[in-house]
C-alpha cells in the first residue's frame, strides 16, 4: 500500500480532530466524572513522558548504548517509588498554595522573582531543543512511511494545529489554577494509542519476523553478540548518570510537573501512579529490543530511530505503518502541547506579568487569557525555529538528554525546598547560574556549533577526554557539582528574609506558626476596593467573592481573624492567577498588615488546632498522647453544663462552649475570634462589661432577651496559660475565663413554689375567710330584712351606712386575699410602702386562721416608717412569721410586731411568747421542706421563702429563741430598693 504524504497528513489531521473531540466531550461533561477522575486516566496522562524519543529514539539508543536506554525509565521508577517523600509533598504544596509550575514553586519558596525568571528562562532554553526534536520526529516519520521528502510547510501546519489544540483545550480558562479535564482525557488517550502501537509493532516483530519466541531464541543463539551489545554498555557506560538524569526528569520536566501536579484531579491517584506508571513504562519499552533485532534481522536501510516504522512497513499488515505513524504523532503532539502549556504559564507569571502588568482599566482575565494564548503560539513557533535551524547531526536521544541535564539543575533547589529550611535564594540563584553556565558550555554550545549556527573557541571534547568522561557524565557531573556547592555555600552564608522563613516552614514541615498581624482593611468590601486599584474592579470583586466562598465566609464578615484568613486565601488564589511572587507583592501592597498588632490568641489556637486536625502526617508517640489529652480536656470544657467563655488579652473570644451556645443562641463558630464587645446584644455589652468590671462575681443578673426574662450568675478568673512560644507572657496573664450559670429554671421554680406556698396559706385561711365573710353577710341580711318594714328615714340611713360598712369589711378581706395570692415572682413590683400598712394586712390575714383568731396581735409599727421594695414579698414574709408565731403561742397568747429605723435600715421584729424553737431544729429551719408541723398542715417552704425574699432585698434575718419563753425574729432591710445588686438589663 502506498502511503503518500497527503494521505499521512490527512490521517494525522483526522487523528488530531479525534483528539479535539475527546477533549471536547470530556470538557463539556459528557464523559462520566468518575471515569475522568479514575487513577488509570491519571496514569495514562503521565504517559506524556514517553515522547518521540521513547517511541522512535529508544531503538536507536538501544542500538548504540544497549540497555542504557532503560535508565531513562528506571530513574522514573525510582522517583515514583519514593513518591511519599518526593512527589506527594510537592503535590500538597502545589495544591495548597495554588502553584502551577516549577518556577511558581521556586518563587514561592525562595520568595524571589529572580528565581522564577531564571527557572523560566532555563526551562525555555532547555526545552526548545526538545520541542524541535518532536517536530523533527513527525516530519522524519512521515518521510520514512511515505518514502518521499516531506515538504517543510508540513511541519509548520503540524505546529499550527497543535497551537490551536493547546489554545482550545489547554488554555480555556484565564487561570492555570483551573483544571483541564478535556486535556487530561486527550493526553491519556494519546498514551493509550502509543502503547497500543508499540506493542503491536513488537508483536509484529516477534511473530512476523522471528515466527514466535522459539524463532527469536534461535536467532539470538545465532547472533550471541546481539545480547552482549545490550549488556556491555551497561557495564561500561554512564549508567548512574543517566539514572540520575531520569530521576530528576520524572517530576521536574515541565510536562511532567504539569501533568503530575497542576492537572492532578485526584490526589489519591498519585498512590496508584507510583507503581502503575512505571508499569506503563515497562510495557511501552518491552518491544524495544524486539524491534531493534527485527530491524537488524531484516537489515533495514534506515536509521535505527525509525526501525519501528520500517519494520511495520516491511513485515506488518498494510494498516500497521499508519498505526505506527499515529503512535509517533501521539508521542510528539502530547509532549508539545503539555510542554507549551507549562512553559506559557511560567513565562506569563514570571516574565510577562512582572514586566508588563496590565492597567486596572483592562479586564485582567481577558488579558491573561490572551497572554497565555499568545505565549503558546510563540513557544511552539520558537520550537519550530529551533527545528529549522538545527542540523540533523544529533540523534533524537541527544536532543532529549540535553533537556534532561538542564532540568537536573533544579534538583538541589527542589531538595532544599522540601528538606532544608536554611536553603535561601542566594544559594539557589548562585547554584542555578553556575549550573546553567556549565550546561550551556558543555552541551548547548557544542550543539549549536555542530549545527554551524555559531563558532566558539572552547574545546570541550578535549577537556572531556582529559577527564575520562563521556559527554553526559562530564556535563552532569560538573554542572551539578558546581550548582550544589554554590547552593549550599550561598545558603550557609546568605540570610533568609522573613517571608522566606515562613515559606520554608510551609514547605519543610508541619510548622505550627499562626498567621501574624491584622489586616488594616476592615471588611470584604474594603478588600475589594483596595484590590481594584491594581486588579481592576471586576477581577477584585471576583477574587474576593471566590475567597469568601472558599472559606465559607459571609460578605459581611468583619472579624479580624477571619479577615486575616481571607487575605491569606486571596493571596493563594491570586498565586494561581498571577504567580506567587506577584500575588505576594500585590497583597502586601494593597492589603497591608498591622504587624504591631499581636496575633489574637484565638487565631493562634484555631490555627494550631486546624494544623493538628489536618496534620500532614498524624502525630506519634508522646505528641499523640499529648494531643489525646488536649482533645479530652477540650471536650470536657465543651460539654460542661456551665457556660464557659475564655477571652485573650485583646478581649477576643477564644473558647465558647456548648452551654454558652445554648444560653445565648450564638454559635461557637460565629463567636470565637470576635472581640467580646462585638457580640450581638445583649451578650456583647453584658460580657464585655463584666470582663472589665472589678467584681469577680455577679449574682442573679436579670437579662431580658427576645421578650423573655432570664437570670444568670457570672463568675470570672484570670488564666495564666497556656502560652504559645511566640507570644509574650503578658498576653496570657490577662486572659480570662468567664463562667455563666443560667438560673432561669431555678428562678421559675422558686416563683412557682412561692405561689404554691401562698395558695397553700390561702387554703389554710379558707375556714377563717368563710367565717369573716359570713358574719358581715349575716349582718347585711338582717339589716336588709329590717329595712323592708322600716319607714323612719333616719333609721333607714343608719341601716344603709351599716350595710356599706359590712360590705367594705368584705371588700377589704377579699382585696387582702387577692393581693396575697397574686401570682408573679418576687422582686417584680418594687415600690415604696408603709410598713405598718403591710403589717396590718398580714395580721388581718393571719386572723383568718384558726390559731390566729385565738391570738392577740399588737402592731407597734410607727406610721412614719416606709420601705422601698417588693410589697407583696414583704407581706408574705410577715404572714409566714406571724403564722409560725401563732402556731407556737398558746391560746390567748400575744404576738407583737414592731419596726424601727437604724441609719439606712429598717428593723422589723416579730415577737411571741410561745414554746420556742428546739435547739436541734434551729440549723434547719430555713431549709426548704423542713417542717415540725404534722403532715398536711405545713409545706416546709414558709421560712425558706422568707429567707429567699429577704436575701433578694439584700436584707438579713436572725432568730433569737429560748425554749418555753418565746421567739424573736429580727429582719433588717435596706430602706431603698436593693432587690438585685446590679440593675437588670433589658433589650
Amino acid at each position, binding site marked *: 500500500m502506498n502511503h503518500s504524504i497527503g494521505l499521512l497528513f490527512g490521517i494525522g489531521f483526522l487523528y488530531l480532530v479525534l483528539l479535539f473531540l475527546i477533549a471536547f466531550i470530556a470538557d463539556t461533561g459528557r464523559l462520566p466524572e468518575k471515569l475522568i477522575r479514575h487513577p488509570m486516566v491519571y496514569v495514562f496522562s503521565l504517559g506524556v513522558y514517553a515522547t518521540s524519543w521513547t517511541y522512535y529514539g529508544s531503538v536507536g539508543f538501544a542500538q548504540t548504548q544497549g*540497555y542504557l536506554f*532503560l535508565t531513562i*525509565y*528506571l530513574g522514573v*521508577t*525510582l522517583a*515514583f*517509588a*519514593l*513518591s*511519599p*517523600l518526593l512527589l506527594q509533598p510537592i503535590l500538597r504544596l502545589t495544591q495548597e498554595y495554588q502553584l502551577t509550575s516549577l518556577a511558581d514553586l521556586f518563587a514561592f519558596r525562595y520568595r524571589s522573582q529572580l528565581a522564577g525568571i531564571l527557572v523560566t528562562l532555563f526551562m525555555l532554553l532547555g526545552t526548545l531543543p526538545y520541542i524541535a526534536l518532536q517536530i523533527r520526529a513527525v516530519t522524519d516519520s512521515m518521510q520514512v512511511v511515505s518514502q518521499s521528502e516531506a515538504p517543510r510547510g508540513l511541519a509548520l501546519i503540524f505546529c499550527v494545529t497543535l497551537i490551536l489544540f493547546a489554545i482550545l483545550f489547554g488554555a480555556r480558562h484565564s487561570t492555570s489554577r483551573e483544571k483541564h479535564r478535556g486535556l487530561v482525557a486527550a493526553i491519556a488517550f494519546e498514551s493509550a494509542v502509543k502503547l497500543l502501537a508499540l506493542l503491536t509493532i513488537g508483536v509484529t516483530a516477534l511473530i512476523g519476523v522471528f515466527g514466535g519466541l522459539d524463532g527469536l531464541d534461535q536467532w*539470538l543463539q545465532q547472533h*550471541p553478540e*546481539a*545480547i*552482549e551489545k*545490550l*549488556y556491555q554498555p*551497561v*557495564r561500561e557506560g554512564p*549508567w548512574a548518570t543517566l*539514572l540520575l538524569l531520569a530521576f530528576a526528569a520524572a517530576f521536574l520536566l515541565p510536562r511532567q510537573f504539569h501533568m503530575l501536579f497542576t492537572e492532578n484531579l485526584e490526589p489519591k491517584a498519585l*498512590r496508584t501512579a*507510583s*507503581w502503575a506508571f*512505571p*508499569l506503563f513504562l*515497562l510495557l511501552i*519499552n*518491552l518491544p524495544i*529490543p524486539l524491534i531493534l533485532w527485527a530491524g537488524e534481522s531484516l537489515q533495514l536501510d534506515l536509521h535505527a530511530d525509525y526501525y519501528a516504522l520500517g519494520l511495520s512497513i516491511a513485515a506488518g499488515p498494510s494498516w500497521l505503518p499508519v498505526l505506527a505513524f499515529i503512535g509517533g504523532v501521539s508521542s510528539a503532539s502530547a509532549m508539545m502541547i503539555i510542554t507549551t502549556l507549562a512553559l506559557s504559564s511560567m513565562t506569563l507569571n514570571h516574565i510577562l506579568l512582572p514586566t508588563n502588568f496590565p492597567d486596572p482599566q483592562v479586564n485582567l482575565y481577558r488579558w491573561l487569557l490572551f497572554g497565555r494564548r499568545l505565549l503558546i503560539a510563540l513557544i511552539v513557533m520558537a520550537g519550530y525555529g529551533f527545528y529549522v535551524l538545527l542540523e540533523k547531526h544529533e540523534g533524537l536521544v541527544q536532543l532529549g538528554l540535553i533537556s534532561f541535564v538542564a532540568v537536573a539543575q533544579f534538583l538541589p533547589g527542589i531538595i532544599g525546598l522540601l528538606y532544608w529550611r536554611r536553603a535561601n535564594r542566594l544559594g539557589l540563584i548562585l547554584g542555578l547560574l553556575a549550573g546553567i553556565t556549565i550546561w550551556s558550555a558543555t552541551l548547548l554550545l557544542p550543539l549549536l556549533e555542530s549545527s554551524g549556527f555559531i563558532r566558539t573557541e572552547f574545546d570541550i571534547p578535549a577537556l572531556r577526554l582529559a577527564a575520562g568522561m563521556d559527554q553526559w557524565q562530564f556535563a552532569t557531573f560538573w554542572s551539578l557539582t558546581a550548582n550544589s556547592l554554590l547552593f549550599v555555600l550561598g545558603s550557609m552564608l546568605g540570610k533568609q528574609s522573613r517571608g522566606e522563613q515562613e515559606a520554608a516552614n510551609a514547605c519543610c514541615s508541619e510548622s505550627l506558626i499562626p498567621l501574624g498581624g491584622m489586616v488594616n482593611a476592615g471588611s470584604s468590601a474594603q478588600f475589594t476596593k483596595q484590590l481594584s486599584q491594581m486588579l481592576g474592579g471586576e477581577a477584585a470583586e471576583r477574587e474576593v467573592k471566590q475567597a469568601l466562598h472558599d472559606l465559607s465566609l459571609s460578605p459581611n464578615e468583619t472579624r479580624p481573624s477571619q479577615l486575616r484568613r481571607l487575605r491569606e486565601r486571596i493571596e493563594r488564589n491570586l498565586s494561581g492567577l498571577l504567580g506567587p511572587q506577584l500575588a505576594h507583592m500585590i497583597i502586601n501592597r494593597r492589603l497591608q498588615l498591622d504587624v504591631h498588632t499581636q496575633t489574637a490568641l484565638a487565631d493562634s489556637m484555631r490555627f494550631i488546632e486546624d494544623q493538628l486536625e489536618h496534620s500532614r*502526617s*498524624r502525630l*506519634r508517640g508522646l505528641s499523640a498522647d499529648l494531643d489525646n489529652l488536649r482533645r479530652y480536656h477540650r471536650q470536657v470544657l465543651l460539654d460542661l453544663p456551665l457556660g464557659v467563655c475564655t477571652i485573650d488579652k485583646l478581649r477576643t473570644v477564644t473558647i465558647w462552649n456548648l452551654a454558652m451556645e445554648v444560653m445565648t443562641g450564638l454559635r461557637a463558630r460565629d463567636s470565637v475570634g470576635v472581640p467580646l464587645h462585638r457580640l450581638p446584644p445583649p451578650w456583647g455589652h453584658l460580657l464585655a462589661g463584666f470582663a472589665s468590671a472589678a467584681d469577680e462575681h455577679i449574682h442573679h443578673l436579670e437579662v431580658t432577651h427576645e421578650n423573655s426574662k432570664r437570670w444568670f450568675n457570672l463568675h470570672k478568673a484570670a488564666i495564666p496559660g497556656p502560652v504559645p512560644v511566640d507570644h509574650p507572657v503578658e498576653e496570657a496573664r490577662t486572659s480570662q475565663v468567664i463562667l455563666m450559670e443560667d438560673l432561669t429554671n431555678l428562678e421559675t421554680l422558686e416563683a412557682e413554689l412561692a405561689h404554691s406556698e401562698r395558695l397553700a396559706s390561702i387554703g389554710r385561711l379558707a375556714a377563717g375567710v368563710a367565717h369573716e365573710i359570713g358574719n358581715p353577710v349575716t349582718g347585711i341580711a338582717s339589716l336588709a330584712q329590717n329595712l323592708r318594714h322600716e319607714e323612719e328615714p333616719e333609721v333607714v340611713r343608719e341601716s344603709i351606712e351599716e350595710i356599706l360598712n359590712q360590705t367594705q369589711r368584705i371588700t377589704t378581706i377579699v382585696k387582702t386575699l387577692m393581693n396575697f395570692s397574686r401570682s408573679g415572682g418576687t422582686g417584680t413590683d418594687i415600690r415604696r410602702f408603709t410598713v405598718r400598712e403591710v403589717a396590718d394586712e398580714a395580721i388581718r390575714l393571719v386572723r383568718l386562721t384558726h390559731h390566729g383568731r385565738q391570738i392577740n396581735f399588737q402592731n407597734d409599727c410607727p406610721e412614719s416608717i416606709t420601705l422601698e421594695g417588693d410589697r407583696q414579698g414583704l407581706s408574705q414574709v410577715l404572714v409566714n412569721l406571724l403564722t409560725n408565731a401563732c402556731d407556737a403561742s398558746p391560746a390567748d397568747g400575744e404576738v407583737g410586731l414592731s419596726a424601727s429605723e437604724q441609719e439606712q435600715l429598717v428593723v422589723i421584729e416579730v415577737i411571741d411568747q410561745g414554746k420556742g424553737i428546739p435547739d436541734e431544729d434551729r440549723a434547719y429551719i430555713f431549709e426548704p421542706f423542713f417542717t415540725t408541723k404534722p403532715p398536711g398542715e405545713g409545706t416546709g417552704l414558709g421560712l425558706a421563702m422568707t429567707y429567699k425574699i429577704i436575701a433578694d432585698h439584700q436584707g438579713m434575718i436572725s432568730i433569737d429563741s429560748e425554749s418555753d419563753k418565746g421567739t424573736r425574729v429580727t429582719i433588717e432591710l435596706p430602706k431603698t430598693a436593693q432587690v438585685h445588686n446590679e440593675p437588670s438589663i433589658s433589650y
Partner: protein
Amino acid sequence: MRETPPPERQLDRTLALGLLVLLLLSAPIMIWWTSPDSPWYVPYLLWFTIILFTAWVHHRNYEP
C-alpha cells in the same frame, strides 16, 4: 480489618524501598544481571520486581 500503619512506618518502608531499588540498580548487583549469560529479558524481570515491591509497599502504606 487491618489498620492504616503510622506515618513513621510508611516513611520507613518508602526509604527501605528506595534503598532496595538503588541496590538492585547499583554496581554489585549489576555485575550479576549484566553477565553475558543472562537472558535478554532479565532487566525487565528486575524492573517488574521493583514495580511489584513498590505496589506492595504502597498497598501496605495506604490500604486499610
